[in-house]
């Protein structure tokens, strides 16, 4: 034993310390962290997907509106690709070398080990010739999935379209979507995407380091089968939907028809429309660019006019005056006002189309008398029970908004717009406390700062048809085998007007269509009592818009309808007959022989705004001069002058003051 013996312990100690360092590191990577365990899983696990068929969409008569057609995507797993005859492959699928390289690089960047789409949606012919020779191209395989086919080529705005998912969609899908998947991007396809898409099937496969499959993971315990999308039944009646689209051909506007009792939308026409099949398949991108091209399609094809178009309700608002007047008790059906051909709001004259003399409710509505409507509005505003007219206005605004104006109705489509109906705050901001009913008098005849969508107008007709309530309009009446529907689409929303007050109003609307002095006689239908009103909305950029709203039959109504034809002049010329053809077709299943020539004539009419003249940038539709004025004013507040101090508040604006009554109110029919 020498004194160097102690060095034994230093060396042994070193061995132990190094051993402990190894064990410590091992403890960290094996026990303390599960990072490596998860990496091992992702090493060997590959998820293979099977794609479900998207849900079928039917119309209310169980007619199939959408089918699924198989398409074949050519897939590639880059690291399995071996040398092959590139030329014959690109010849079979019909692409050039440049595109081949681009696609291949893209797939390689995405993943060398996972399949990526090489060429989308091969035609059946290409698929047939390719599948015979596929074994010549190692690393390539064909994956089938389905795409939409819309056999009627109609109702594009209703369906919307299905498109490849964006990065954002993938991020928001909680891991469901992967690049190359498809998702509903507009219309019902978007709104009901969760129902329609079904559930992808997943097969968990184990792969070795050379990417050779080694069987299923955990005996397939975590595998799932693909589940097809749910069947969805639409409320549309495709007979009138197609008729409506034919009638609106070469015109700009909307048709909305609702079944009053249920709120089910029977027709949903937005013109110009587009063939939904254009938004399917390999040409989707090009077709889309064409459709939004201002030169080829100047009238904004993708605007869903029934829920996005803003129009002054105009005369179609007058029944609401009468209803609120009756409910508030400021008039009764026999209350008479005198119409000398105009109405004096303070010292400002609002013209009436006719000199109606003494006129009561029924005839007032049938003749669409401005004077009558404005007297009722004046009485509502001047009620003694309110502190001032601004409070009265708020009460009126509340009651009107119960009819669904100025708010989204909650239809089951994306991107509905609310329209405009302002509270007193808006006017207080604009005029201080220095305003009264004469300032907003044009609202009494549905003009001024009030915008409604065609859907809201049709819904008002449904309310009148129902004598006091509406069900939220909707396009899908049943989902899946169990015919589920959201509760909100079954609930009645009462508008706060007693049912008895509707009859006199409906009398007036019946006369408008059926009496010799009515303004909408063009919409009468043999043996059916149609009730309705025409409207004409002034358009500063061209001819006036033609409007008709109504419902039929008078008792137990089956259809409420709003038709707007832009730039078509008087409501009686275009909108009223179109509405009657739709209603007749719906109620009788065919249109009377003597009207068929009229239907054909209507289909052939071309009523398009003069090209290039409109310089619209943001808002697709501005309909009347008054609104345009107010819009301009809002944009340049400096120029807005409130009524000068010396002018009494009741004396409304003159032309120069720039308030909403700046222009003579257009007489409406």
């Amino acid at each position, binding site marked *: 034993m020498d004194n160097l013996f102690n060095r034994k312990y230093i060396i042994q100690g070193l061995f132990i310390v190094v051993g402990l360092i190894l064990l410590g590191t091992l403890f960290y990577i094996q026990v303390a962290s599960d990072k490596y*365990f998860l990496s091992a899983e992702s090493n060997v696990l590959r998820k293979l997907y099977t794609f479900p068929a998207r849900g079928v969409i039917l119309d209310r008569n169980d007619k199939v509106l959408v089918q699924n057609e198989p398409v074949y995507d050519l897939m590639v797993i880059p690291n399995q690709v071996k040398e092959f005859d590139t030329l014959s492959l690109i010849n079979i699928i019909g692409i050039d070398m440049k595109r081949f390289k681009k696609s291949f690089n893209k797939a390689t960047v995405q993943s060398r080990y996972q399949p990526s789409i090489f060429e989308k949606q091969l035609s059946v012919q290409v698929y047939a010739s390719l599948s015979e020779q596929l074994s010549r191209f190692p690393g390539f395989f064909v994956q089938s999935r389905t795409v939409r086919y819309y056999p009627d080529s109609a109702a594009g705005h209703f369906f919307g379209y299905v498109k490849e998912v964006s990065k954002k969609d993938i991020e928001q899908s909680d891991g469901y979507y992967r690049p190359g998947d498809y998702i509903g991007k507009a219309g019902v396809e978007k709104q009901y995407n969760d129902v329609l898409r079904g559930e992808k099937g997943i097969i968990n496969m184990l792969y070795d380091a050379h990417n050779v499959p080694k069987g299923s993971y955990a005996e397939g315990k975590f595998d799932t089968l693909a589940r097809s999308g749910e069947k969805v039944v639409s409320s549309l009646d495709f007979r009138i939907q197609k008729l409506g689209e034919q009638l609106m051909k070469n015109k700009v506007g909307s048709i909305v028809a609702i079944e009053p009792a249920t709120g089910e939308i029977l027709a949903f026409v937005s013109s110009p429309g587009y063939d939904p099949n254009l938004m399917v398949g390999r040409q989707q991108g090009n077709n889309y660019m064409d459709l939004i091209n201002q030169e080829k399609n100047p009238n904004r094809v993708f605007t869903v006019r029934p829920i996005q178009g803003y129009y002054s309700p105009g005369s179609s608002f007058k029944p609401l005056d009468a209803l609120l007047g009756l409910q508030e008790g400021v008039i009764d059906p026999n209350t008479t006002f005198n119409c000398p051909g105009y109405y004096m709001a303070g010292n400002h004259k609002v013209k009436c189309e006719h000199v109606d003399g003494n006129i009561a409710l029924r005839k007032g509505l049938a003749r669409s008398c401005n004077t009558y409507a404005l007297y009722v509005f004046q009485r509502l505003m001047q009620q003694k029970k309110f502190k001032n007219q601004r409070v009265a206005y708020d009460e009126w605004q509340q009651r009107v908004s119960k009819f669904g104006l100025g708010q989204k109705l909650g239809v089951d489509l994306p991107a509905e717009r609310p329209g405009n109906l302002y509270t007193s705050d808006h006017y207080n901001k604009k005029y201080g406390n220095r305003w009264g009913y004469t300032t907003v008098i044009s609202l009494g005849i549905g003009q001024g700062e009030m915008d409604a969508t065609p859907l809201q107008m049709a819904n008002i007709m449904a309310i009148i048809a129902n004598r006091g309530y509406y069900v939220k309009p909707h396009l899908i009446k049943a989902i899946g085998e169990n015919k589920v529907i959201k509760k909100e689409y079954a609930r009645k929303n009462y508008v706060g007007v007693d049912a008895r007050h509707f009859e006199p109003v409906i009398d007036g609307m019946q006369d408008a269509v059926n009496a010799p002095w009515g303004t909408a006689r063009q919409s009468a239908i043999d043996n059916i009592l149609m009730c309705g009103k025409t409207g004409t909305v002034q358009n500063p950029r061209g001819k006036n818009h033609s409007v008709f709203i109504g419902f039929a039959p008078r008792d137990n109504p089956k259809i409420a309808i709003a038709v707007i034809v832009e730039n078509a002049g008087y409501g009686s010329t275009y909108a009223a007959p179109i509405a009657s053809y739709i209603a007749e077709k719906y109620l009788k299943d065919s249109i009377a022989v003597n009207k068929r020539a009229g239907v054909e004539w209507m289909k052939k009419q071309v009523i398009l705004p003069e090209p290039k003249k409109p310089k619209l940038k943001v808002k697709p539709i501005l309909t009347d001069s008054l609104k345009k004025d107010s819009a301009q004013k809002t944009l340049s507040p400096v120029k807005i002058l409130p009524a000068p101090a010396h002018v009494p508040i009741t004396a409304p604006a003159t032309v120069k003051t720039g308030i909403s009554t700046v222009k003579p109110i257009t007489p409406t029919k």
Partner: protein
Amino acid sequence: MTTQQGNRFFFNVDWITILLYVALCSIGFVNIYASIFNESVANEFSFAAKYGKQLIYIITALILGFSILLLDAKFFSVFSPIVYGLTMLLLVAVLVVGRKVAGNQAWIPLGSFRLQPSELAKFGTALLIARYVSTFNPKFRDVKSIFFAAVIVGIPLFLILLQPDMGSALVFLSFMFPLYREGLSGYFLLIFLGMIVLFIADFLVPAQILIPLILAIGGLFIYQNRRKHKVMISCIIVTVIAVAYLFLVKATYERLLEPHQRTRIEIMLGLKTDPKGAGYNVIQSKIAIGSGQLTGRGFLEGTQTKYGYVPEQSTDFIFSTIGEEWGFVGCFTVITLYLFLLLRIINLAERQRSTFSRVYGYCVASILFFHVFINIGMTIGIIPVIGIPLPFISYGGSSLWSFTVLLFIFLKLDSNRMGFI
């Protein structure tokens, strides 16, 4: 004495060591089986498969080991210069003959068997070091004895570096431990440690910070020892050498190392991540070991192992199979077995009467220690990938036999400890 002579196999041989040896070989066999196992192929036992071959290697290794026990203990001391000389000749030969074998310069083909002279050089060198110390009893206080020892170790190290086989060359640094035990100053170990620290620092810290830092620390020591001239001078020398070393490392690294060796070092230091490239082995090995968690995925259940994600798994990366299928428990067991073996050999070495046996024992323990530390360290990513096998466990006849010979020579010497050599 005669009884002992007659029964020396059963009484004098250290059966604990043999038990540990057999245990490690068995663990090796089981895990080689697992790393070769392929569930989609019919798995009848086959001697053509790697595990079958390994079984043959183990049996032949045992025969070889016990034959060594039958030899005369004096043989090793007497013939050590010859053995050393022969292995050096083989190392030279491999540089000539080996070049003619495609790609690999470390092997000499002998029929179907491939001889790896660097393995033999380890015990050749160990024998000669032991002989040198036992004959001249140097205390390594003088430059001459240090020089002699350095030459004995340096020749094979240099020849192996020419192959070039960094890993095997590195193992020759393990001879520092026996020399330290025999009197070499502890400063050499510290200098060695310092070289490693500086080496790593050279890559992690930019030179414009590192060199002033070293000069500052050196200056501080020089200033503190300004009155003790001898110490001050050595401080100056150390500082100068340290700076020179840094430049040398950089130059060596940039000029002499192969690109793949550079990437390996960079990956180990965390300067580069390249999962599909050079770091792939280590990452997959870490994933395999880490996924074993506490108790492992079970025999033949490791997906990393089964599906071939870890390259060279039956040879250099066999530890990843143990980690994956047997978990921390398995790793703990293996490392503990090694520690027992190493500590046991040191204890046996210390009970030797002959210096030759003691020094040789230290050599054996140190060589094994280097292999175990470097191999396991590389599979868990704390040491760069240096292709050296895990003793007794990694697949391969050549390495198993040479480790067996290395160990059993010592067992023979130990069984004969009462005699004089």
